């Protein structure tokens, strides 16, 4: 089973929920941090990393000995990533989406592929919990290809928990697509609600069952709850604002470490999700 933890708005507590749930469940669990622009889960899990891999995406390289400057590569490219100027061909690797069109269309077979570095993937573990995250190279614009690479580490025989990035566009979709359940973490504020509605829209497009967690549930107003009821979205957990939790978080400590009684709540959260996705599939 794959559970994706997303939010729309940033800073609502995705990583808190993902790490606490993963650690509470213990073995036969893997945590994939797909917020590759700003991965944070490792700061709480402290995994021992035993594999580091540089991830690249294919981009064109032109052999000018073979090129006859026909211009077909520039014509097919939708991303302005390769152009013929005068007597030369200029690839712009940072614009390239790696579709392979230019290489395929070149009548002289003058184009081959080399790699543009997207970032690294690190894999490790802590107390039987398997941990994988991607780190986007600073300056690299495209995160979805790296997110898809992180997701290739998902194993069907265990529970996979995905920590997704904020927002509702392509990186979030790449982190939710194909999940069995999406857990949306929100806060009861106008910003939280506005972005929650967008996130629910994205989950609906993908057709994945979802539930809510309301963080800092005693700050703000009750409009998130009214919305949840109207939309029939189950509220699976509420985490009240507690300065102790906030300060522990600031030091990189998890809720279940400073307040062990929360472990039971995270286990129950998982049970509820399991039941909900079971009912959906049977």
């Amino acid at each position, binding site marked *: 089973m794959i559970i994706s933890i997303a939010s729309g708005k940033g800073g609502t507590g995705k990583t808190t929920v993902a790490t606490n749930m993963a650690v509470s469940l213990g073995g036969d669990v893997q945590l994939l941090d797909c917020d590759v622009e700003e991965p944070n889960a490792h700061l709480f899990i402290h995994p021992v990393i035993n594999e580091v891999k540089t991830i690249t995406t294919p981009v064109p390289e032109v052999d000018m000995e073979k090129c006859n400057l026909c211009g077909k590569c520039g014509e097919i490219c939708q991303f302005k990533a390769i152009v013929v100027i005068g007597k030369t061909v200029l690839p712009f690797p940072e614009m390239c989406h790696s579709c392979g069109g230019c290489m*395929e269309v070149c009548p002289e077979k003058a184009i081959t592929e080399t790699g543009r570095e997207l970032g690294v993937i690190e894999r490790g573990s802590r107390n039987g919990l398997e941990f994988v995250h991607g780190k986007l190279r600073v300056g690299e614009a495209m995160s979805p290809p790296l997110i898809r690479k992180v997701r290739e580490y998902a194993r069907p025989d265990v529970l996979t928990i995905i920590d997704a990035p904020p927002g509702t566009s392509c990186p979030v979709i790449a982190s939710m697509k194909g999940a069995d359940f999406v857990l949306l973490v929100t806060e009861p504020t106008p910003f939280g609600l506005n972005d929650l509605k967008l996130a629910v829209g994205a989950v609906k497009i993908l057709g994945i069952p979802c539930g809510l967690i309301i963080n800092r549930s005693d700050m703000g107003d009750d409009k998130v709850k009214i919305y949840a009821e109207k939309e029939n979205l189950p509220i699976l957990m509420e985490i009240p604002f507690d300065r102790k939790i906030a300060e522990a978080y600031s030091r990189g400590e998890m809720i279940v470490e400073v307040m062990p009684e929360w472990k039971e709540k995270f286990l129950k959260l998982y049970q509820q999700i399991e039941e909900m996705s079971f009912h959906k599939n049977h």
Partner: protein
Amino acid sequence: MKELVVISGKGGTGKTSLLAAFASLANRKALCDADVDAADLHLIMDPRIKERYDFESGHEAVINSDMCTQCGLCRELCRWNAISEDFIVDPIACEGCGVCYYFCPEKAIDFPLKTCGEWYLSETRFGPMAHARLGIAEENSGKLVSLIRKEGKKLAEKESLDLLLTDGPPGIGCPVIASLGGATATLIVAEPTVSGRHDMERVVELAAFFKVPAMVCINKYDLNPDMGQAIEAFARERNVTVMGRIPFDPVFTKAMVQGKTIFEFDDRSEGSKAVKVIWENLVKGLETSTCREQS
């Protein structure tokens, strides 16, 4: 005209609340919400939309089943696994590269332009505002960010305003890169947590990569003063100007719930006092072309 872009790396550190507060304090400015993925500034600015436009960007492949002979070439060439066994394109998986459209021997694939959002020119109680809404699950957010910043600048220039205040997106990827290019300076809103520090370091690196002068302020400072100091030390090391500290103050949430800036809600709150100091430092910082440390 100068442009200040507020970013953070980590989400939820208070970019939008701060930008709204600055809007209360700044003279002669226009506003721009470049967080097109999850735009929130309008919830405080309450804009009256004067002009509305479709955002058209990119294409999407559509297979015409009447003409398709199911030869399979498109499925073979598509690197996004976007074409199903019964030859239907999954619009979410389609990257819009056009390879299938270009090579289809039956010319059975259409490649229409996509409408993937809307953008608006509005009036607010603080001045003109450019903002946008990217369609849910859409791509090309970087292009929409570039467009909306350009429109924001036009709004400011039309009324001969001195400043464009731009609310940027979280992260370090394509929309953030698009929000930084050509900006006068960027203010990074950090929080004193392990995540806040980690993410701030990466976004400082990003600003340096694109040679945009960076300044930093720390929100919720008293949550972890040691971490706050560590962030400030890192900033100084990297020639990033430290603009000030904001205490943890529920006034931000209370003001937001009422759709107000913190100054409209309570201009004597601790949060408001701290933001005022930061704003004064920012004004000085923006005046000098190189944003050096305020003494």
